[in-house]
């Protein structure tokens, strides 16, 4: 297993290098290049030339790339053109909020979709199952940003807290600025973005889990488990769910990039101080170092997530574990 992990980690190095080369060159191909951001102001041609030299943009591309690579390997991703602060500092400040949002959404999604998926598989074709299936179709057809807008419309613009007259739920930021820390305040800020982001995923995963539960439930070993007199709860949650959940882990890992993309909408609509918003503003402001940095770090995280999913999968499924150890 350890060798397998090491091999996978080594394999990801050329992939990351390729990513960095592609992004670096594509960004430099854009007319105007990184300088265009400075050229928009009142900067004189002489000053521009100076900035060019200072940023190393007068060097050949290949030299620029290796310079950038050398710096990156030492943990220096350059400075943001916009704020002048180190890219790494900017990104690290944003990673936390994104993980907090995605992590809590994910937890909610998993809990709800496992419950919903199991219930609708166990009671296949009941009214409840049909209701749930319809709901999952609806949930999958709603764009994250539209759900976000409608939630704001309902819980921020329309409904208000009867005792204070303030909006029922806050619709921007991660916490109230200038107020002492309180768990309730953080939770209240989390609810709307979490629901907007999670709704589609709950639908998708409960459908998926329902299908794989139905596959498992009709197998012989489940009949055996029932025949030897186990309680239905134990049969469903211990014997059936464990096998039904294995394909879900792989799917989850493959979907992680999409979840990350969805969080970009949630972050923008709810002014959440995360990576998605950082990336979006970097695109708007042509902040090249931040662009490079966020893309690279996101790619690295995605590769890592896939690796973790593979490890979890092999932990859950002895057959896969056996194949990989060979």
């Amino acid at each position, binding site marked *: 297993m350890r060798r397998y992990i090491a091999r996978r980690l080594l394999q990801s190095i050329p992939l990351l290098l390729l990513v960095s080369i592609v992004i670096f060159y594509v960004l430099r191909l854009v007319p105007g290049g990184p300088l265009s951001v400075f050229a928009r102001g009142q900067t004189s041609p002489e000053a521009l030339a100076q900035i060019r030299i200072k940023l190393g943009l007068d060097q050949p591309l290949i030299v620029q790339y290796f310079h950038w690579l050398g710096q990156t390997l030492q943990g220096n991703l350059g400075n943001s053109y916009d704020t002048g602060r180190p890219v790494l500092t900017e990104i690290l400040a944003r990673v936390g909020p994104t993980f907090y949002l995605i992590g809590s959404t994910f937890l909610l999604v998993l809990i709800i979709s496992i419950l919903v998926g199991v219930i609708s598989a166990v009671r296949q074709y009941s009214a409840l199952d049909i209701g749930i299936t319809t709901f999952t179709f609806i949930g999958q057809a*709603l764009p994250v940003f539209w759900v976000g807008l409608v939630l704001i419309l309902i819980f921020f613009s329309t409904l208000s807290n009867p005792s204070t007259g303030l909006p029922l739920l806050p619709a921007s930021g991660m916490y109230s600025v200038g107020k002492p820390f309180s768990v309730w305040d953080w939770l209240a800020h989390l609810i709307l973005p979490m629901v907007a982001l999670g709704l589609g995923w709950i639908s998708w995963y409960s459908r998926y889990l329902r299908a794989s539960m139905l596959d498992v439930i009709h197998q012989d070993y489940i009949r055996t488990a029932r025949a030897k007199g186990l309680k239905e709860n134990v049969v469903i949650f211990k014997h059936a769910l464990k096998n039904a959940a294995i394909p879900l882990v792989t799917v989850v890992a493959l979907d992680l990039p999409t979840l990350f993309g969805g969080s970009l909408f949630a972050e923008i609509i709810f002014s959440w101080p995360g990576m998605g918003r950082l990336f979006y503003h970097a695109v708007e402001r042509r902040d090249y170092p931040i662009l490079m940095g966020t893309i690279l770090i996101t790619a690295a995280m995605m590769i890592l997530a896939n690796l973790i999913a593979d490890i979890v999968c092999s932990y859950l499924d002895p057959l896969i574990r056996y194949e990989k150890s060979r």
Partner: protein
Amino acid sequence: MAEQAIPLDDLDYQIPAQETMLQIVWKNFRRHPMGLIGASILLLIVLLSAFAFISPYDPDEINNSNRWQTPSWHHPFGTDKNGRDILTRVAYGGRVSLMVGVLSMATAAILGTIIGGLAGFYGGQIDNVLMRLTDFFLCFPQLFVLLFLSFILRESHITFMQGGFGNIIIVIGATSWMTMARLVRATFLELRESEFVKAARSYGSNDLHIMVRHILPNAVGPVIVNSTMGTAWSILTESGLSFLGYGIQPPTASWGNMLQDARATMGVYPWQTIFPGAMIFFTVIALNYVGDALRDALDPYKVVGQMRQ
């Protein structure tokens, strides 16, 4: 007594009426009420967009004295911040959104079929390289790549067609072919050693002929189902990109950029948000139901079983 030949017509033998594959698929499809409802909703939305020109209003003309009208008989969906009739804009926007959905999915389907087909048919190094490429594309959040690519095209002042219509199609198509490639590859991998491929090779068919005429038809089912769902996904993606300001550029209406337009004032004039959003919702849910019904109707075991009966 000489033996007499019995005329064939006198034999009590009837050739059973053969159903074509299309008939069987349609017969199976009809059994899905939700699939039928989905198809009808789609038809309605397509008709609405196709006959957008019936509207007495201009979709883009600004008329500030008429802004933010509540829904009424004159403006069933109300008007927006520039006094434009929202129903008209929704209909014209539907053209853009549906076309983007279909065309970018077609791009993705063609790309995916070529890449997956080559990888599955030739295997070995070609497969290895092409599948690494697929993994490479899969390891990014699609939205990040979309924003990045749209940014590059915009900065390079490359615009294909009105409102960046072509840009969106290319960009979405180029970032969503991976599932298709994997599906097609699986079919090719499975069938390249099969008897009928060997037979075709033995009478001298070349690789291209085998791929296109013999193997590809077997992948049509999954490709169609995936394309239906993929169209829904592309419409969602387009609306998202336009919402972020990197999709269809105003004044050309699309459902996504109408939502973007509405965002600032939606607390006061909610109908601006509700109608374009509902259009996206109904289109996507209808496509998903149709895709679901098609998956069932095109299930090869079912179809072949019924053809043999």
